[in-house]
């Protein structure tokens, strides 16, 4: 038993030091010892202790995997892809040295945004507005946190000087949002951990009215509320909206709150509460279809999880809320939303129900701008459930076509698969389409951000691909693109 304790201690040290190779060696040693004991049918207590050790140890590949991912994340993650309706497609990512790079996919032009940064950069928000590209990130210098902003103009010809939007006054964290208007307004919204009153986390905004050349001082958007942790921002038709998951100061109940601005962020409306809600674990960006303003969130009431919806037809004065009932009880992994201009809303989500071992990818479609919802539909065409399908991302065209990409493990290695509908989500293809050679690579989509975008008749996917079968071997950032011309995918 002492030997086992010793091995376990070494494993914990190695886990901290992130030495995967040695960890696996120790793991194999434990496997050998346990095999011997199991084969001999030795003492039950020893067996149970071994199980406990294995649980700790095998958290090592699992945690070690996550840790290694976060190490390799420094190379690319977070990465984002954005496009506009003029065919501009841009990607932003971190290189291996921590450089934050922005790349025009079509021209191949690439710019380093945080050149000369004093210390470690992290977090990322990217927004494209015609020939302008706006990027924001956090630079941490010891305990000081700077919120940085930089703009690209003229389609990549001009790079503005980097700005500091906040010098530790809000203690900015990495959840940052940027939205802009064609008229030159740029709003940056983020959450920070500067304690204000009893509130540990608060959401702040800063705005520009000259295409990101100058910015206002940060304004706190969550006065009177506590612990707001999921900043959201939508700019549409000259209005900007934010929805925030907060707690009331008085009774500490969770509420979804709402604010808007009609002057590019110079002034914000008073906070209004949409409703009291459960515990929110994931959030979706709000969106607007026609004059209807929507927001969805994933929540749980008394431990039963469900996607909740809210929409307003009067710019946020009154709200209609509801649930997507088919998602009730689903252990949701991730979800993503897209819409066209005719009132079709497409939800793509991954999750599993109680008793299921592997996650599936589903869609839910509304054909009446979110008033009613169709059934939860399993998107994957595969007869066996030994493997999982996760991380869906969805994008729609104005003409009623919609495509969903996801990470599928049917080939054991993770591959990007695609499904599409050309009739606004009523029917889908009989066969899922791999976007790469099945089983050859381990490719993954970015979590918690759109990995798929549509621009100029093409769908673009941004993904990372491992160089082997282990996180330790490094990875490459890859683009995939396809279109749905001539009735099929190309």
């Amino acid at each position, binding site marked *: 038993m002492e030997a086992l304790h010793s091995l376990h201690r070494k494993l914990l040290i190695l886990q901290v030091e992130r030495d995967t190779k040695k960890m696996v060696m120790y793991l194999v040693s434990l496997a050998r010892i346990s095999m011997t004991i*199991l084969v001999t049918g030795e003492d039950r207590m020893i067996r149970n202790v071994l199980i406990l050790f294995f649980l700790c140890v*095998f958290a090592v590949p699992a945690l070690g995997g996550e840790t290694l991912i976060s190490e390799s994340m420094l190379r690319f993650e977070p990465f984002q892809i954005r496009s506009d309706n003029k065919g501009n497609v841009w990607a932003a990512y971190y290189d291996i040295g921590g450089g934050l790079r922005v790349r025009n996919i079509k021209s191949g032009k690439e710019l380093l945004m945080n050149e000369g940064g004093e210390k470690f950069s992290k977090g990322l928000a990217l927004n494209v507005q015609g020939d302008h590209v706006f990027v924001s990130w956090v630079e941490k210098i010891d305990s000081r946190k700077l919120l940085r902003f930089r703009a690209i103009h003229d389609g990549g010809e001009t790079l503005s000087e980097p700005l500091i939007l906040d010098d530790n006054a809000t203690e900015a964290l990495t959840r940052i949002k940027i939205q802009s208007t064609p008229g030159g307004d740029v709003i940056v919204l983020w959450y920070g951990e500067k304690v204000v009153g009893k509130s540990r986390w608060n959401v702040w905004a800063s705005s520009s009215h000259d295409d990101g050349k100058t910015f206002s001082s940060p304004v706190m958007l969550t006065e009177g509320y506590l612990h707001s942790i999921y900043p959201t921002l939508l700019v549409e038709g000259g209005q900007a909206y934010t929805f925030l998951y907060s707690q009331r100061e008085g009774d500490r109940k969770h509420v979804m709150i709402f604010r808007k601005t009609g002057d590019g962020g110079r002034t914000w409306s008073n906070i209004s509460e949409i409703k009291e809600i459960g515990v929110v674990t994931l959030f979706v960006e709000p969106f607007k279809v026609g004059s209807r303003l929507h927001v969805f969130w994933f929540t749980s009431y008394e431990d039963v999880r469900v996607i909740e919806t809210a929409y307003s037809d009067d710019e946020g004065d009154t709200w209609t809320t509801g649930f997507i009932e088919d998602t009730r009880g689903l252990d949701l992994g991730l979800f993503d939303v897209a819409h066209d201009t005719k009132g079709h809303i497409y939800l793509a989500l991954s999750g599993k129900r109680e008793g299921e071992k592997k996650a599936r990818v589903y869609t839910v479609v509304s054909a009446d701008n979110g008033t009613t919802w169709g059934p939860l539909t399993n998107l994957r065409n595969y007869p066996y459930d030994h493997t999982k399908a996760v991380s869906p991302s969805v994008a729609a065209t104005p003409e009623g076509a919609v495509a969903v990409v996801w990470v599928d493990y049917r080939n054991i290695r993770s591959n990007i698969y695609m499904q599409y509908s050309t009739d606004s989500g009523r029917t889908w293809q009989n066969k899922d389409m791999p976007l790469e050679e099945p089983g050859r690579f381990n490719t993954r989509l970015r979590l918690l951000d759109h990995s798929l975008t549509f621009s100029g008749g093409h769908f673009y996917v941004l993904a990372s691909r491992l160089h082997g079968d282990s996180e330790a071997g490094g990875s490459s950032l890859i683009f995939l693109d396809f279109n749905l011309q001539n009735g099929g995918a190309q």
Partner: protein
Amino acid sequence: MKKLFPCIGLCLVLLFVTACATSGIPAKSSLSDDLGSPEKTALLRERADNFWSALSNEEYEKVYYLYDPFFRSVTDINSYYGTMGKVKYHNFNITDVKVEGNVGFITIDVVYSLPKVKMRIQEFEVPPTEGAFTEKWLYIYDNWYKEFYIHMIEMGTAEY
């Protein structure tokens, strides 16, 4: 010297024929999209037979390369050697082979034993004993591989 030319010529012809033969062999196509054809099932049986033959014969290098690439990517062969040889496998019989896409199931009867081994103050020994179980195999791009999996905690190195 005159005798040398025919030899050189023969070598060149052989080299040419070998090169043609090599380049003429079509690359083995992936069966990743195959849900369970007889060909894919037969290949699984062959690979499982190779694995258990190698294990019975203590040919651990062969065994190592029949494990899934996720396991091999984090465990080098020398580390693996250190874990082997304690349990002896005397005989095996594959009784069932089932393929569901890229996951295969081999049902097998095995006779194993554990020669006397001392761990600290305790000694263990198992005489030749019969066992039967079903193990999982994974078809990964070009072939079937045995999944490295520890049943005690229901966890392996391939995450799918």
